[in-house]
């Protein structure tokens, strides 16, 4: 088998994936933002005497957030922001660690 033919197998078995930090951040941001948005609106639509007493505790961290439709938009923004930071951070750190570990392996190899 030539080197060129081996390439896909080699890619799968030996190389380590790198993450795109921005994409990862955006995706995580959207997931978290949508999570808060949907969870909030779900409780708003359900209604009741006290709407979302537990979810409203997020207001401890997300200033201005409450269980209303407008609050769901604010929640989305906060969620997106936090998700982005988290996702971006994880990806950057992951890439850094992979570089570190691969560099080390290559030096030993």
């Amino acid at each position, binding site marked *: 088998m030539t080197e060129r033919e081996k*390439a896909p197998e080699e890619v*799968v078995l030996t*190389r380590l*994936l790198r993450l795109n930090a921005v994409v990862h951040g955006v995706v995580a941001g959207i997931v978290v933002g949508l999570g808060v948005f949907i969870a909030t609106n779900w409780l708003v639509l359900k209604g009741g005497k006290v709407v979302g007493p537990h979810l409203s505790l997020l207001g401890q961290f997300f200033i201005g957030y409450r269980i209303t439709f407008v609050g769901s938009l604010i929640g989305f923004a906060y969620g997106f922001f936090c998700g982005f930071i988290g996702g971006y*951070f*994880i990806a950057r*750190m*992951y890439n850094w660690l*992979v570089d570190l*570990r691969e560099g080390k392996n290559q030096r030993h190899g």
Partner: protein
Amino acid sequence: MGKAGISDKQVVVIGAGPAGLTAAYELTKFNQRPIVLEKRENVGGLARTENYKGFYFDMGGHRFFTKVEEVKKLWHEILRGNFLRRPRLSRIYYSRKFFYYPLKPLNALIGLGFWRSVLIALSYVRWQLFPYRLEDTFEQWVTNRFGKRLFQTFFKTYTEKVWGIPCSELRAEWAAQRLKDLSLKTALLSMFLKPKTQIKTLIDEFHYPRLGPGMMWNAVKDEIERRDGVVRLNCDVVRFNKTGSRIDSVIISCNGREELIRGTDFISSMPVTEVIKKLDPPPAPKVLQAAEKLKYRDFLTVCLIVKQPNLFPDNWIYVHDPDVRVGRIQNFKNWSPDMVPDLTKTSLGLEYFCTEGDALWNTPDADLVELGKREVDRIGLASYADIEDGCVFRVPKAYPVYDSDYRDHLAIVKQFVDGLENLQTIGRNGLHRYNNQDHAMLTGMLAVRNLVLGERNDLWSVNTDQEYHEELRVDAGVEARDVEEVVQAALSRIFPKLDRVALGLSVGMAAGLLLFLATLWLVLKGGVVVGPRLRLLNQYFPWYSVTASGSVLGFAYGFAVGFVGGWGFAFLRNVVIFLYMAVIHRRANVYLLRNFLEYL
């Protein structure tokens, strides 16, 4: 070199096969008047059609199927209404039974019988679990993929008939090279770009000239002559006169008379080994020796005329059965009804693979016809008594042999030929490359583009590998190179492993920090009861509290949980990717198994 600069050129094309005639035809489009020299009395080369008493015999059975747009266009441009679209049916004859080819699982199961199928399955499992450690030979290569029993059933005898050497001596490299377009990358490409319709078309039907491939090449010859080109038959090039790194002229032998033909540029589809041998002055001994060591496989066709209107529905049958010597049987009437002059009769072409000069090759025609009659009767395709006539055609140098050393020898020959300024070699034998007709034609087209437009196409790299790219181009409407690049980029982005430890550490860090900051935030906010809800985490994280020290402990817990989560996610993702790749690989192997003989 611009178009204007070629008006004073005299291009000599050696060989009137698909590559040579295509080159000459393309040259006429640039207002050139090429001289084509052909040693045989008819055109078509390895894709010629022989005529015997009004019956047409295609030497080899040439399906007209291509993914090269330029070639497809040329075919239609030349033949127009004489280009038929024909259904394809081919089967394998083995152990007195017929199996559909490409293989169909149910048909194969019924044909082989239950117990034999079970044994094949068990053998497959056994060789998957304990494969040969080294894949040096073709036998090992196939066995490792399909199991020993399947190898013996469907691959061994036919391969040995075609190549004339035991599979245990045929190099694995040959299989890997010939079948490389069925590699994992191809399978991945096919999944992304869905070329299945093309593959299906290849299996189900093909185009064919009404009177065989010769009709195409005769039409091309006529067209070249109509445009003031010259096609000279029965003219064998016996010497290339070389000065420095240029060919000045060739000496040809026409009906016993020698003649000198001068040219400014030469395009040759004659076997590259012969070009080397006929150079004057001769090249270095190293080059001559390398050329000497490049080998060919030949075949002969025993043509039989049978007094029956219909014998069997196949276009051709692969004969794997070791009890008969015939390797493949063509039923030309099923290729095109016009191949026979009398519809109450059928013409068959029995192909015997051999080597020029061996016992079979030297067998008198009458004996070969007799052998063919007996074997076709034994297989049960036609009754001996119904065969009223027969003849034999020999096709030398039909297949370049990819033996263990050919690469090294070819590299030497290639280097030498590339050093000749005004000579380009094209076609299957000109490049010693197992190209099909369409790719041979493509080399002719590219050679002309090199000559006329000053392009720098590497003719030696036109091969089956290219086919897949073309397939993609047809289907996806994108350029082959783009596809290659995109897929390589996608592969290196999507399919590599996730580093479990790195992901574990980074998710752990993120989770730890999140809990640390959340705790600290509530501590800093203060109040009568600080973070009563967040404190509930101590149900899972013993001793955790919403305090400054608790935030540190929270970090540790968050990190631990995040690490396990990240590590586990990466592990599962890698497992899924691995399984996914295994499925793709399996599909590629199944495709390979079903279509294996196409590549022999």
